[in-house]
Structures are given as structure tokens and as C-alpha cells.
């Protein structure tokens, strides 16, 4: 294994934590998993913690007064504490568990649609997003604006894949109610100047919603430093399970917003005529929450913190730089988005001239290399660059330089398979 500066010092030990990395695929090939921006693999400790919960402590939370109930509630609410600490939230009550990042973003858009008073979004109001958003940070705002009569506007992109900030003064104006943007693009890899944009948005009194789905796995997150009012991420990309996402929101705003889903846990008192609602965070958590998933997420964030988000970030940067170099040795390959690793996250989308991304991914798969092909839920960003779809490799804390070598080699093979050489 080559040693690049910045790699996690005990990378082989880290890899041993992830049972799936030992899998062999068809033809006895080892798995080269380069699809972590799509979903990350899970360390043994996350799986074991979930199993232990299910085998020994399973019970519903909040409502149950017995020993199992107390254990389950403690584990579940403990996960909230861990999550709050992970993003440096001022209060644990500001951490709401959702089913994924998409629900977290929809929660904000939906409650803004039903809000009355200063937070209400309606005709004449503007919501600003960007052209590099994941569909999950586009469609909720389209639905909100279509349904309330507000106007949707967006930042365009520069040719090198950055936000075009030249229009910021007209985009963010006194009509702007919400600015929602991704911290790290899942397609272009771009890391956006979120704090700077948040400052501008706050000057006009807009609410800032940050999609940290790709940031939380890779960067140290500090909700205060980033200047967000809401911040969303998803469990399955931070080595946690599916079925859980996180919405952090400023207490003052969460308290003002109306409820999202109605049901058990989110109420204070229910009469047939009318109900009153619980305080945050429970007000936004209707029904039995994703209990074992929260417990798994807690174990995941503890695992990441133990390795250290700074170290993980350095590792991602090292691998990304190595990959950018390697990819560019492949004839006919062009990378979408910034070409310098320091400006970007660990997802690298690219085109290979003469071969459709589906076919690239298929041939790579025959060599055990797992990447993603398509528009990666970022169709507008693809369109912006005149691209129908792309191939995307994405690394994580368990990725080795040797795996990047395997990717590059498999790309060479793809070219020869399709007779481009």
C-alpha cells in the first residue's frame, strides 16, 4: 500500500473494522468500493451495537416504564446527545431525528408552508437554492413555492463548477425568505462558502438551510460556525444505518414552526376537538422513532469521532488528490468540477469519451470496482455542463490508494473493451 501524506495512519486496521470490505465478488474478485457518496459501509461496532440493542434492550421509548423501556430510551436519547456533540449544537433539544436527509429538508419546507406569522412563505416571497443541489434539496422547495405562490430562484454555476456568486446581490434581497444550499456537492465535489452566503442571507433576514449530507461524513461540522439556521444530514452516509437522518434547527425557529407530522410522541394533550403539541424535539418526531437506527447512528458518530473528523478529512483530501492525478492519466477522461483536491470533497464525477457512464460502470463492476453512473440525483448540475450523465467514484475513510490504482486500471480496460485503444 503506497503511503501518501495525510492518509489515516492505521488504514489497514480501519479497513478491518468494515466486514464488507473482505467480501469477494463474482470471479473471486475483491471488492473495490468507490460508491461511498451514495452510501457508506458500516463498521462492525455499528452493526454489533444494533444487534445488542435488538437482542437485549429492545423496547419502545419514552412511553415505557419498565427496565427494557428505560434502557431503550436511554440508548435512544443518548444518541441524540452524541449527535448534538458531533455537530456542536447548542442544545440537544435542537436535534430532530428524521428518516433521512430528504425528510429533514422536507420538514423545513413543509412547516414553512403551514407557518403563519413572520415565517410564513407566500406570494411575493422568494426561496433561493443553487443549480448544484441534490434533488432532495430542489424538489421540496419547488413544492413549497408552487404550493404557496412564492418564487424559486437559484445560483448558477461557473464553468469550473463553483457557485456563481456574481448574482448574489440580486438573488439575496429583501424578498428572500429562505436560502437553501449544499455544503459539499455530491456531483461536482465543490465545497461551497456556506458561512459567507449565510451571512448575506441573514442580513436580509432570510433563513439558511444547509444540506450537509456530503459534508457531515467528511468535514468537522459546527452548526454555529457555519451560520446555518437548519442543517440536515443522513445516517447512512456517516457509516450509520439507513432509516435515520438528522435535522438540526435553531431552537427559536423550531419553536415557532407548526408541527410537521401528527401522532404519538409529538403531542402534549389530545382531545378530539384539538390537540396541543410537545416541546422540541419531540414536536417534530411523530410516531415510534427509528430507535435502533438512532442507536446505530450514535455508534457511527462515536466511531468517526474516535478516528477524528480532522484526520478523516485529511485522508479524503489525500485520496482525492491521488485520484484526480490518476484519473487524468486516462485518455479521454474529463473530470467535472474543481480540479484541486483542497477545494473539493471526495466525490469525483467524470466522463470517458466514447463510452456511456452506464457502460463504464458495468465494465468496472466486472473488475470488482463499484462506482455510480447516472445523474446522481443532480440532473440540473449535469444539464448545466451539457452532460446527460456521468460516472462517479467516491472514497471514504477506508479507501486506499491501491483501490484508486485499481479504478484507473479498470478504466484503461474499459477503453480497450470498447475498442477505444
Amino acid at each position, binding site marked *: 500500500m503506497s503511503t501518501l501524506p495525510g492518509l489515516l495512519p492505521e488504514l489497514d486496521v480501519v479497513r478491518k473494522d468494515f466486514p464488507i470490505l473482505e467480501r469477494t465478488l463474482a470471479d473471486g474478485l475483491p471488492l473495490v468500493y468507490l460508491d461511498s457518496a451514495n452510501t457508506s459501509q458500516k463498521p462492525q461496532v455499528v452493526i454489533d451495537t444494533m444487534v445488542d440493542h435488538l437482542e437485549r434492550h429492545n423496547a419502545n421509548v*419514552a*412511553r*415505557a*416504564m419498565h*427496565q427494557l*423501556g*428505560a434502557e431503550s*430510551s*436511554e440508548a435512544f436519547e443518548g444518541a441524540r446527545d452524541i449527535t448534538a456533540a458531533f455537530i456542536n449544537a447548542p442544545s440537544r433539544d435542537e436535534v430532530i431525528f428524521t428518516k433521512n436527509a430528504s425528510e429533514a429538508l422536507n420538514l423545513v419546507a413543509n412547516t414553512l408552508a403551514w407557518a403563519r406569522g413572520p415565517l410564513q412563505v407566500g406570494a411575493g416571497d422568494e426561496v433561493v437554492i443553487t443549480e448544484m443541489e441534490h434533488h432532495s434539496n430542489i424538489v421540496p422547495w419547488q413544492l413549497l413555492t408552487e404550493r404557496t405562490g412564492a418564487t424559486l430562484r437559484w445560483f448558477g454555476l461557473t464553468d469550473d463548477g463553483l457557485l456563481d456568486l456574481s448574482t448574489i446581490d440580486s438573488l439575496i434581497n429583501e424578498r428572500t425568505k429562505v436560502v437553501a444550499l449544499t455544503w459539499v456537492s455530491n456531483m461536482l465535489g465543490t465545497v461551497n462558502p456556506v458561512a459567507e452566503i449565510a451571512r448575506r442571507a441573514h442580513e436580509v433576514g432570510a433563513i439558511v438551510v444547509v444540506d450537509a449530507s456530503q459534508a457531515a461524513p467528511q468535514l468537522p461540522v459546527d452548526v454555529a460556525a457555519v451560520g446555518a439556521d437548519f442543517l440536515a444530514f443522513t445516517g447512512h452516509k456517516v457509516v450509520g444505518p439507513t432509516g435515520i437522518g438528522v435535522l438540526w434547527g435553531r431552537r427559536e425557529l423550531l419553536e415557532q414552526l407548526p408541527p410537521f407530522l401528527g401522532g404519538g410522541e409529538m*403531542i*402534549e*394533550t389530545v382531545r378530539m376537538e384539538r390537540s396541543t403539541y*410537545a416541546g422540541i424535539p*419531540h414536536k417534530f418526531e411523530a410516531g415510534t422513532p427509528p430507535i435502533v437506527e438512532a442507536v446505530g447512528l450514535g455508534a457511527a458518530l462515536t466511531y468517526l469521532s474516535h478516528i477524528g473528523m480532522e484526520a478523516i478529512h485529511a485522508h479524503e483530501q489525500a485520496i482525492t488528490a491521488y485520484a484526480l492525478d490518476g484519473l487524468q492519466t486516462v485518455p479521454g477522461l474529463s473530470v467535472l468540477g474543481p480540479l484541486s483536491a483542497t477545494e473539493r470533497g471526495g466525490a469525483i464525477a467524470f466522463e470517458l469519451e466514447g463510452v456511456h457512464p452506464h457502460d463504464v460502470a458495468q465494465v468496472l463492476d466486472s473488475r470488482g470496482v463499484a462506482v455510480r453512473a447516472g445523474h446522481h440525483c443532480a440532473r440540473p448540475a449535469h444539464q448545466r455542463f451539457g452532460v446527460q450523465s456521468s460516472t462517479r467514484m467516491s472514497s471514504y475513510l477506508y479507501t486506499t490508494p491501491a483501490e484508486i490504482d485499481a479504478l484507473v486500471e479498470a478504466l484503461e480496460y474499459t477503453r480497450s473493451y470498447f475498442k477505444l485503444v
Partner: protein
Amino acid sequence: MTTQNLDALYQEIILDHYKNPHHKGLREPFEAEVHHVNPTCGDEVTLRVHVQDGKVEDVSYDAVGCSISQASASVLTDLVIGKSVSDAMAVHEQFLTLMQGKGTVEPDEDILEDGIAFAGVAKFPARVKCALLSWMAWKDATARTLGEDS
């Protein structure tokens, strides 16, 4: 939970207050009335405070709930009626610390009197809310009274 813990939870003092609650019933005069609910179980308390010249003249209440929540309301009234608001708040603070201490806080009998019987409750996270229901209501009601004064 062990039977030993059970006895620690259901101290005689608590059961006595439960069977014979002090200061129960809603009385006049009062400056503020609040209604608090434990959403998990539905326990409820309506609580009134009468504050005059910075002194807690009366706390009256009507409550439905378990032994812990009922006894706690009774002990609350014993402890705060007749005290200055600031002294009463100090007692509140101590009780809160005791309840949130997960069983590690040593209660001060001089201050908490019968309230020390709740030390065992702190080991039962699900019951801490029961013990605090009326205390939170009292704090809320008192804050409203002071809000009106100023």
C-alpha cells in the same frame, strides 16, 4: 429494578403524602394559574400561586397522577408556602438538582425536608418527570406572577 430499589422509590414519606396530600385543592386568591401535563402518561396538574410582597402566600393545586407526582406536589407546597420567592426558588433549584442527579446527589435535609424522600426517584428516569411535574408548574406560575408585577 430490585425490590430494594422499589422500597427506595416508595419511601413511607412519599406514600404518606400520597394518601394525605397537603394543601390540595384550588383556592383564591391567586395571581397565576397554570396547567401542566406529562404527555407520556397524561398526568396533569392545575396549579395556582398567590404571591404578595415577594412572598409565597399560597400554592394550591388540583392534580391527577401517580403516587410520586401527587406526593411531590404535596411536599412542594409544604416547602415553598411562607417562604420568600427567592428562598423558594433556591429550594426548587436543589430539588431539581436532586432529581436530575441520577441518584448521585446527596440531598440536604435542612433544605429539602420531606423532599429528601425523593432521592430514590432520581434513579428512575421515567419517574423523574412525575416528581417534577408540579415543581415545573410552580416555577412557571411564579414566573408569570412576577412578569405581571413588573
